[in-house]
């Protein structure tokens, strides 16, 4: 198949991935493989599109090609081909099995019941293609008392213990501002697939990968989980303070809702901070000379720091502190990020035109390879955009067969329900 989804100069050129997943985690895994040259075919149905397109909860997204305008779907599906197939009907399931026979990797993130109902469990698909690498992303895993339970990113994050650790001192447990469990599951899934591809290249052996999304996240707890196991200690929520650095916090800068963070890890940094504040004598103030005293008088110290920061632009505070050797940074929102000089100098955002949304900038590939850099070959596909390409060139269907599939709404390019 002559395909726009493939590139010859990249490590995974020639690897075909069938991505049956939806939302963020699974599609991110597919995108990371596509960035490195794999031909990734994402599978949707006109009766049931990827819910990450927003049509099931965002008003207005069912009309006027609203399903093509999702700020969530577009950035995690670049470089993919889009095929629609109604898997609830035998013809759709038959075609997906033909595709699996021609694929190297299969990604799915349904609850375990769904793949069973489709007849697409690992034992089924490995019978179709013995060296297939299949990756499943169940929230709680495929065994254990909660195996049939499901998870959003927030469920994952909570169940992995992150939420209990986060919050203002004395306040409620707090969710991360991003649905952190989702991308972490996707990054782990892609890592696992790449390991399995390496193994397959040397041995010819495929396998089934299980990414229980909560299990993928728990290692990120690090200190607090190890402190429980070593010392049976549960870490309290301490807001913007640190267990090691003092002072450590988020301080107001000039302007409405403008903030800057800083943290002091050593005596040298403490003296540097006092110099930057224009109060070198503070370093000798008996309330603040050693870390344990600074911790005891953290409120008073915060007030002194805030008095200085609130009169200055947040970037100016960070610039002055960094020049003095103190770690600091402005709290940036989306427009700040798009204007950030570091990200701009490294050309982190890339710009691309896409039908229905126009020209926009998107976060670019993160791991930068010098010889085989990830390529943005095309934006996220439109619903069913590559139906004919895949069915005709890859599966060898005739024009009349494709017409029949269209007529029967096994395939399509317009949202049906």
């Amino acid at each position: 198949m002559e395909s726009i989804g493939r590139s010859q100069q990249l490590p995974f050129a020639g690897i075909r991935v069938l991505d049956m997943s939806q939302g963020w985690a699974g599609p991110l895994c597919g995108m990371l493989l596509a960035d490195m040259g794999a031909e990734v075919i994402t599978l949707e149905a006109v009766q049931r599109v990827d819910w990450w397109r927003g049509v099931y909860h965002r008003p207005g997204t069912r009309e006027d090609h609203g399903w093509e305008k999702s700020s969530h779907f577009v950035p995690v599906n670049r470089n993919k081909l889009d095929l629609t197939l109604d898997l609830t009907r035998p013809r759709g399931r038959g075609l997906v099995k033909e595709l699996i026979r021609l694929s190297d990797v299969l990604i799915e993130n349904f609850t375990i019941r769904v793949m069973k109902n489709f007849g697409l469990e690992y034992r089924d698909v490995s019978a179709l293609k013995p060296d297939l690498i299949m990756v499943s992303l169940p929230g709680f895993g495929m065994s254990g008392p909660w195996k049939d339970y499901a998870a959003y990113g927030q469920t994952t994050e909570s169940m992995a213990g992150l939420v209990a650790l986060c919050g203002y001192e004395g306040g409620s447990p707090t969710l991360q501002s991003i649905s952190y469990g989702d991308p972490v599951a996707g990054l782990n899934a892609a890592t696992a697939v790449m390991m399995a591809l390496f193994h397959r290249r040397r041995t010819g052996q495929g396998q089934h990968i299980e990414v229980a999304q909560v299990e993928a996240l728990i290692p990120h707890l690090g200190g607090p989980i190890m402190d429980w196991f070593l010392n049976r200690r549960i870490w309290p929520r301490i807001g913007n303070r640190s267990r090691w650095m003092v002072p450590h916090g988020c301080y107001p800068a000039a302007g409405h809702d403008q903030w800057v963070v800083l943290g002091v890890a050593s005596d040298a940094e403490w003296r540097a901070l006092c110099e930057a504040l224009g109060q070198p004598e503070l370093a000798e103030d008996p309330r603040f000379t050693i870390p344990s005293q600074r911790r005891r008088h953290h409120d008073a110290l915060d007030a002194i720091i805030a008095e200085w920061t609130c009169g200055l632009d947040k970037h100016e505070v960070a610039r002055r502190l960094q020049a003095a050797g103190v770690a600091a940074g402005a709290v940036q929102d989306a427009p700040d990020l798009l204007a950030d000089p570091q990200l701009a100098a490294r050309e982190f955002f890339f710009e691309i035109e896409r039908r229905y949304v126009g020209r926009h900038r998107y976060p670019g590939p993160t791991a930068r390879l010098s010889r085989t850099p990830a390529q943005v070959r095309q934006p996220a596909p439109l619903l069913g955009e590559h139906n004919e390409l895949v069915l005709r060139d890859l599966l060898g269907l005739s024009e009349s067969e494709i017409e029949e599939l269209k007529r029967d709404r096994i395939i399509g390019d317009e949202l049906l329900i």
Partner: protein
Amino acid sequence: MASVNEQTGPLAGVRVLDLTHHIAGPFCTKLLADAGADVVKVERPGLGDGLRSHEPFAGDEPGVERSGLFFHLNTSKRSVTLNFKTREGLAMLEELARRSDVLVENFRPGALDRAGLGADRLEALNPRLVVASISNFGQDGPYRDYKAIDAVFYALGGWMYSMGAPDKPPLYPSGSYAQYIAGLFACLGILPALYWADLAGEGQRVDVSILEAVLSVLVYDTVEYSYSGIRRGRFGHRWSLGSVAGCTASVQPCKDGYVGVYLGHGEERWQLFVGALLERPDLLDDPRFAAPQGRVQNVDELEAILREWLQEHTSEEIFHRAQELRLLFSTIPTTRDLAESPHWQARGYFQELEHPVLGRVTLPGPPFRLSATPLEFRRPAPLLGQHNAEVYGELGYAPEDLVRLRELGVI
């Protein structure tokens, strides 16, 4: 390269020279080591990786062999000590680089060049070598040499602005998550590069910026702004995608603590929530909540109704009852709750390893399960310099050479 048959794991036979310290780099090389790669961790004589001196310590007693976090992040590796600022030390490091498939480092940008082991030198030594560098802001750019702590990544990376309550300062995410993601992105650069080296016989460099790693998991904030001008604010215990999405996610108090209430999308879930879980079918006809936008506008009233019900039930009751209705709720477990959970016990997720100083230590298991070539903890985190004799012996050094090198402070 060792024979594939001698070792197990998907990366059996791959040799990794690990020059990393702290969290991001060691997390990356831990995943490679647990996957079967032979990871040789090079540490400073005396102190080793600074993370060895980081809490939590077993029994709260500091010591380079007592850090639980170091233990967690260095499973399956071998440790050698080496001062490569000495001439002989650099020669030994070069020999290790010549024999490796991957080199991973997270020094300040330029530090390896100054040590005499820049990209050109490494390529001359071993043209197939994959050289991965993890740094705070990347190998170039105006912030290249800035100092960073976790809070700086969250602040500059856009993660922190929308954390916390609207009437309070943005909230610190309370963990080193940015570094763990950067470690994963390093693996996601190294593994394709290794595959390419196997295919094409040529190595390359991999550059990972922790700041960019943060942006890459925050992906849609800048896109949403670019599409519609919406800037996501702070919502406290409630969470939102920043638009009228009808997505209700919040952490709520219940009878015995807290519970995560995640309704997600779709009318079907709303009907299950109100009709079956709360047993309030009357609310389905309530004009305040009929449409998703109404639930957003009248969220305070909705929350009051919800809280009344939650106060009558424990988090465990709510979690199981909701999940059985296919509502994706959660409990809010502490680290203790995680360790004692019957589910993770049934799956054998947490594992125990024997350590010569710490005794039996429990730690989180591998993050994913490969059916044919599972990740395994092949050995506990190494003692500082534990494998000097073994690794330097493989390079051809005799025991008496090692005595001399130790006296000279090279190892």
